C-alpha cells in the first residue's frame, strides 16, 4: 500500500531541522573537550606534578563510589523520579557491612549480601510510596532518606565503625593493573552496563518513555508501574553497591558518610546529561562529568588553591555547562517559542 503522492502536505525545509552534524558532534563531546582542556591547563600550570600516570590512576581509583552513586541517580532520573534517599542508602549499606563484619563476625560476603538486600528493601518501600500510594518521589525519598539515616544512626549508636575485613579492601581499593584498582573496574563495568541497558535494551528504552510520558507509555502497553517500581529499586540497589565500595575504600563506615556525595552526584548526573547523548541522562556522560569535575578539583588541590575555589569551580562548571548546552541545542534546533523561553 502506498498512499503518498501529490496529495501529501507540503514538505517543509528538512535541512534546517536536520541538525548540523558538526555542531552536534561538538555538542556531544564538549564535556570531553572541557575535560581535556582541564588536563592541558593543569599540565601547563603544574608540569611536574600533574602530568603523571599515577595522578590519573589515583583520580580514577578514588571516585568509584561517586561514579556508582551517580549511576544510581541516572536510573531514577531517567524514569523522572528524584531519589533523595540514595545517599542515606549508601551510608546504611556501608554501615551494615561494618557492623556485621566487625561486631557480629559475619563473613564479608554475607555482610555484602545483607547490605545489598537492605538497598532493595528501601527501594521497594520507595516504590510502594511513589507508585502504589502516589506520593511524589521527591517527597517520599526525602522522608525515606531521613528514616534510613535514623536507622543508620541507631544501629551504629552514631559511631564510626572501623575494622572491615581486608578482603573487601583488597577487592576494592588496592591497585592491580597499571595502578588501576578493582573498584574503578567495577565502576566502569557498571557504567558500561548501564549504558548498554539504557541504549540497547528494550527495557531501558521503555524506562525512558515512562520518564517522558507516563500515560503514553501505559497506553503503549508498557507496565508503567512495574517499570517505575523497578527503577526505584534499581536506584537503591546501585546506591547500596556504592555503599559497598565505600566500605571497601575506607574499611570503615561513618553514619553520615553518604551525605557529602549527594550534591556531587546530582551535579554529575545533570552535567552528564549535556554530553554524549545531550538531553538525556546517560551513563558515559555522567562518567565524563564525574571525572571532569574531579580532575578540576584535583588540579586545584594540587596547586594548593583554597577550598572555596573548589565550590566556585563546582557551581560554575555546572551552570556554565548546562546553560551552554541549552543555548547550543536552541540554536541547533528550531527557534523556541516564547512560552518555552518562559517569558
Amino acid at each position, binding site marked *: 500500500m502506498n498512499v503518498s503522492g501529490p496529495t501529501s502536505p507540503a514538505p517543509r525545509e528538512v535541512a534546517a531541522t536536520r541538525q548540523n552534524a558538526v555542531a552536534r558532534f561538538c555538542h556531544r563531546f564538549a564535556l570531553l573537550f572541557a575535560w581535556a582542556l582541564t588536563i592541558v591547563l593543569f599540565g601547563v600550570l603544574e608540569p611536574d*606534578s600533574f602530568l*603523571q600516570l*599515577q*595522578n590519573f*590512576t*589515583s*583520580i580514577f*581509583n*578514588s*571516585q568509584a*563510589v*561517586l561514579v556508582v552513586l551517580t549511576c544510581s541517580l541516572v536510573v531514577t532520573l531517567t524514569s523522572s523520579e528524584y531519589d533523595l534517599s540514595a545517599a542515606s542508602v549508601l551510608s546504611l549499606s556501608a554501615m551494615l557491612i561494618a557492623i556485621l563484619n566487625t561486631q557480629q563476625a559475619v563473613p564479608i560476603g554475607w555482610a555484602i549480601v545483607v547490605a545489598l538486600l537492605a538497598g532493595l528493601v528501601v527501594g521497594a518501600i520507595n516504590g510502594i510510596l511513589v507508585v502504589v500510594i502516589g506520593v511524589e518521589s521527591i517527597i517520599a525519598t526525602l522522608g525515606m532518606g531521613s528514616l534510613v539515616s535514623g536507622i543508620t*544512626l541507631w544501629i551504629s*549508636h*552514631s*559511631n*564510626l565503625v*572501623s*575494622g572491615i575485613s*581486608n578482603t573487601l*579492601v583488597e577487592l576494592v*581499593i*588496592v591497585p592491580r593493573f597499571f595502578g588501576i584498582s578493582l573498584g574503578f573496574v567495577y565502576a566502569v563495568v557498571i557504567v558500561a552496563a548501564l549504558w548498554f541497558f539504557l541504549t540497547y535494551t528494550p527495557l531501558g528504552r521503555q524506562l525512558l518513555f515512562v520518564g517522558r510520558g507516563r500515560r503514553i507509555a501505559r497506553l503503549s502497553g508498557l507496565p508503567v508501574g512495574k517499570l517505575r517500581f523497578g527503577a526505584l529499586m534499581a536506584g537503591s540497589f546501585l546506591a547500596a553497591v556504592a555503599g559497598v565500595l*565505600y566500605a*571497601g*575504600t*575506607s*574499611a*570503615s563506615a*561513618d*553514619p*553520615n*558518610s553518604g*551525605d*557529602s*556525595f549527594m550534591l*556531587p552526584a546530582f551535579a554529575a548526573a545533570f552535567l552528564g546529561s549535556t554530553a554524549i547523548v545531550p538531553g538525556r541522562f546517560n551513563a558515559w556522560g555522567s562518567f565524563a562529568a564525574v571525572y571532569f569535575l*574531579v580532575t578540576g*578539583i*584535583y588540579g*586545584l*588541590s*594540587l596547586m*594548593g*588553591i*583554597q*577550598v*572555596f575555589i*573548589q565550590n566556585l569551580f563546582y557551581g560554575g562548571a555546572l551552570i556554565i555547562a548546562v546553560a551552554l548546552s541549552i543555548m547550543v541545542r536552541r540554536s541547533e534546533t528550531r527557534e523556541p517559542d516564547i512560552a518555552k523561553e518562559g517569558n
Partner: protein
Amino acid sequence: RADDTGLTSVARADLEAMLAAHTGETRFTPPGPAIDPASLKDKLIFTIPTSTAIPFCDVVDKQMDEFAHKLGIRHEVWQTTAQLGQWVQGFNTAFAHKADLINVACGLDPATVAPQIKEAISKGIPVVAAHTHANGQTQLEDLTGIVYGAYIDAAKLEAAYVILKTDGKADVLVITAPSTANSPYIEKAIMGMFKQYCPTCKVRSAGVNAADWASKIGPTVQSAILADRSLDYVIPIYDGMVQPVIPAIITTGSSARVKVATFNNTPAVLDMLRTGDIVTFESGEDTTWLAGAILDQDMRVLLKQPLVKNYVVGIRAFTKADVAAAGVPAKFGVGYGDAARKGYEALWGLK
C-alpha cells in the same frame, strides 16, 4: 574546711592548681632529647587534614610550613573538603610525589582511611596521626606515630572550672559528638572529673552528630534548660558547637543563669567570651606548639629515633579577665607567647 556541698579544700586546691597551670602564656617543656634535622634536608612531609576549610587546621598547617621552611624540609598540605575521595587522592598524590612521611591531621580519623594507611606503610612511608586522637584512645595498629590532641587536658580544665565556679553545686549538660571517635574519651574524662571532685554535681550528656549541630543542638539545649530549672553550665566539647547553644539560652530567658565552658580557642568564640556574658571559659592548644610537635614527631620518625610517648601540647585557658590577650578581635595563634617556637628551635638546633 569542707563547705556545704562537700567540695573539700584539698579538692579546691587541686582544681585551682590545675587551672593556674594553664593560665597565662604556655610554658614549654621539651618533649624529649634534642635532634639533629640536618640529614632531613629536602625530605617531603605530606599532610592530609580532614578539611582545609577548617581554619584551625589551616593555621597549624601554615605554622608547620614556616618551621619546615627553616628546617629545609618540604611540606605539602593536601586541600580537601571532608570527602573520602579527596582523602584517598591525597594519599595517592603523596605516593606520586614520593613523600617521605604522611601526616593524617586535624581530626581526620585514621580509621576512615585505614586501607590507605596500610598501603603507605607497606610502601615504607610512615604515617603519623596528628591531632586526631585523645590520650588513651584506641588507635590503628599501622600508625607509626601519634601527636595527641589536648582533648583530655581541656576536658579536665572545663570540669575544674565549672566545679570551682559553682562551688561544687554544678548542674551540667555536656554536649558530645558521638560520630567523632575521640568524643567518648572526652566525655569520660569530664565525667571522671565530676565523679572525683564533685560527686554531688548533676551531670548529663547529649550526643549530636556534627552534621546536625546547627539544627539539633538548639532544641536539645532548650529542652534541657526547661526540664531542669537549676541547670547552670553547658559544656560543648568542641567550640564549633557553641553557636547554636547561645540562642537556645537566650530564648529560654536564662542567659543570667546558664553559662558555657568549652574548648578550642576559635577566635569567634573567644570574641563571644570577651564581648558577651554567656561563654565564660574557653581553652585551646598553642597552635605553634602543635605545629612544632607534629614536625618534631615526624622528624623523630624519619630519623628513626625513639618517639615521644603521649605527645600532648600545652593549652591556654581564657576567661573574661585575660581573653584580650588573644587579640581584639581574637586571632588564631595569638596569646600563647613565644616559648614553643623558641623551645623547638633550640631543640632542633636552629640558630
